[in-house]
């Protein structure tokens, strides 16, 4: 199980353009739907805990690993999610710098943008729709926090707190 987790997250690491939000749907699909290691409700709760702690949101992968296989799972999942991408970053940074004037750099950058938007959008949608069963209450909370984020400059922690309050009242 640890090996499976490491291999799969390692693979995801390499395609995680746009960071964690992009791969959240795939993580959920794999650990909840394909492997059935944890439930969809557990998944959103782990995600919430990850959001409420400091640090890069890649830590969610560690939490999922923890839920699946304890402390070893947490370390393996986090390392698998970071290491391959880190190695790529390590090598590509220089190449990218040298390609500064190459037209391909612009082409690739423009190609990446709409893909990242589509994937991040999917991340939000999948999280707000556990088990593929739309729950209007979760959607109300999600859309309220989207609106607050776009219209104010509040620290996201306040928005998460607001979501907690609404959750306590509605759910």
């Amino acid at each position, binding site marked *: 199980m640890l090996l499976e987790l490491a291999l799969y997250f390692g*693979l995801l*690491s390499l395609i995680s353009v746009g*960071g964690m*939000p992009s*791969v959240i*749907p795939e993580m959920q*699909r794999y650990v909840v*739907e394909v492997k059935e290691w944890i439930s969809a409700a557990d998944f*959103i*709760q*782990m995600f*919430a*805990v*990850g*959001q409420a*702690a*400091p*640090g*890069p*949101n*890649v*830590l969610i992968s560690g*939490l999922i690993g*923890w839920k699946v296989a304890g402390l070893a799972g947490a370390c393996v999942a986090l390392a698998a*999610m970071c290491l*391959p*991408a*880190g190695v*790529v*970053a390590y090598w590509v*940074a220089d190449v990218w710098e040298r390609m500064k004037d190459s037209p391909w750099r612009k082409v*690739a950058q423009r*190609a990446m*943008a*709409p893909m*990242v*938007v*589509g994937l*991040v*959008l*999917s991340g939000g*949608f*999948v999280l707000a729709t556990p088990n593929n069963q739309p729950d209007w209450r*979760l959607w109300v*909370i*999600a*859309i309220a*926090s*989207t609106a607050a*984020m776009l219209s104010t400059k509040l620290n*996201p922690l306040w*928005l*998460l707190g607001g*979501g*907690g*309050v*609404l*959750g*306590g009242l509605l*759910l």
Partner: protein
Amino acid sequence: MNNDVAPPRNLRELFTGFLSIGARSFGGVMPWAYRVMVEERRWISATDFTETVGLCQFLPGPNIGNTSVVLGKRWFGWRGSIVGFCGLVAVPFVWVLGLAAFYSDYASIPLVRAIVIGVGAAGAGLFLGTAIKLGRPLARKPAAWVVVMGCFLAVAVGRVSLLLVVPVAFALALALSKWGKL
């Protein structure tokens, strides 16, 4: 303005710098990374910071994690990459596991559970907001809409594996981009 930027002098400084970023970064790491590296410790200039982060957003993996790898390498080679990254995640990793362990003791209480799920839903909303922000510059490009909706339908609705969607979408987007449609 402040041209007097100087890289960290040793690995220890690099580690403590990233440690303080990680430890304080509630609600988002980037603003803290900027504050510590550009304003407090003056390791790099604001322009340099923005360019480096821009590159890291393009690469796969966590943006800020990549930033620590790239900057660590620039200053101290592979050791710098490892030290920078470990400094960044050390405190949050302990935090998040502690929080999860604490939470699992209370997860059976319906109210606590409802609150936490509410937090999760709000977090999902932040993703939607991020997508909207990133998507605004693309609004006038029909080809971009095709890629966005294609990805969304495949991943969120069709639940197709990302391992398939990313290569296909990237090839398509690259072609559109080459023809000047994006």
